[in-house]
């Protein structure tokens, strides 16, 4: 487990980018009545090439020269420790969908962390990536579609940092408007 859930989200996004995805969606759903926090990261990459059990084995990696692959294993560990479940399946985007459901109020659940900075850093360093972000708290939701943010700028203004700043602001505003649980 990592100290913030947003770092697990970052790790999943990095996996997807490394696998060649050009569209990545991040959906966070907080259901207070059911006491559930759900995180879904989906992409249009090639999907899994090994069985699910292998993909979450801490000694399985696709990187050469390494003997351990800790990203998914640590996330699964964190999720299972907080009374939840991590599932991997085919996404409607065509690639992999990683879904984690955990108990929102669990005492050992890591905080969501600095989601806005984390996602802005992804946008800044991958300005052409179509990142679709949505957060739902009960019936309210906030959505940021990076390709739409990008279209607001003329091609010569369209640098990673500019888009990232706008994405950061929109996510931050959404988080405070929805009063998301840390």
């Amino acid at each position, binding site marked *: *487990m990592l100290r913030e859930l947003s770092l697990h989200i970052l790790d999943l996004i990095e996996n997807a980018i490394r696998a060649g995805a050009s569209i990545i969606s991040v959906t966070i759903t907080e259901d207070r009545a059911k006491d559930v926090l759900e995180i879904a990261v989906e992409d249009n990459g090639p999907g899994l090439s090994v069985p699910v059990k292998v993909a979450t084995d801490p000694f399985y990696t696709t990187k050469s020269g390494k003997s351990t692959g800790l990203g998914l*294993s*640590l996330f699964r*560990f964190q999720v299972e420790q907080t009374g939840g479940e991590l599932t991997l399946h085919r996404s409607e985007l065509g690639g992999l969908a990683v879904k984690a459901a955990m108990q929102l109020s669990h005492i050992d659940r890591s905080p969501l962390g600095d989601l806005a900075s984390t996602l802005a850093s992804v946008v800044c360093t991958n300005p052409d990536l179509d990142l679709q972000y949505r957060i739902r708290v009960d019936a309210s939701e906030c959505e940021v579609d990076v390709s739409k943010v990008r279209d607001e700028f003329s091609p010569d203004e369209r640098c990673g940092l500019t888009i990232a700043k706008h994405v950061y602001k929109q996510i931050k505003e959404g988080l405070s408007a929805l009063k998301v649980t840390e």
Partner: protein
Amino acid sequence: MKLNDLAEKLSLRNLTLEIQIKESTCVSKGHASDLLSDVLANAPGGSVLVTIQVHMNVIAVAIHAGVASVIFASGMVPDQAVIEKAISEGLPLYTSKESTFDIAGQLYELGLRGGHG
């Protein structure tokens, strides 16, 4: 301090008797943590890790971080599959009934220090 001597002084139970620990294996650093990302980031190479986590991930993280040995505190004992993986990776595992706090205190008394000590 030699790992063998340390295990004897703390009356640790060796879970990986199959591993032949070299007489020359010495440890001078320790780390106590249950947060695996903290172990990855902060456990000194060649240190003894004290934890109550017994998941397979502990073995992977210990190998990745170059930890010399793991002591499970509070009587925690991992599953056989975890022990077998540690044996195949050559990572000695021990268990003790004492708490993380008490084990860390004894290791400190024997001269071991944390990453910044």
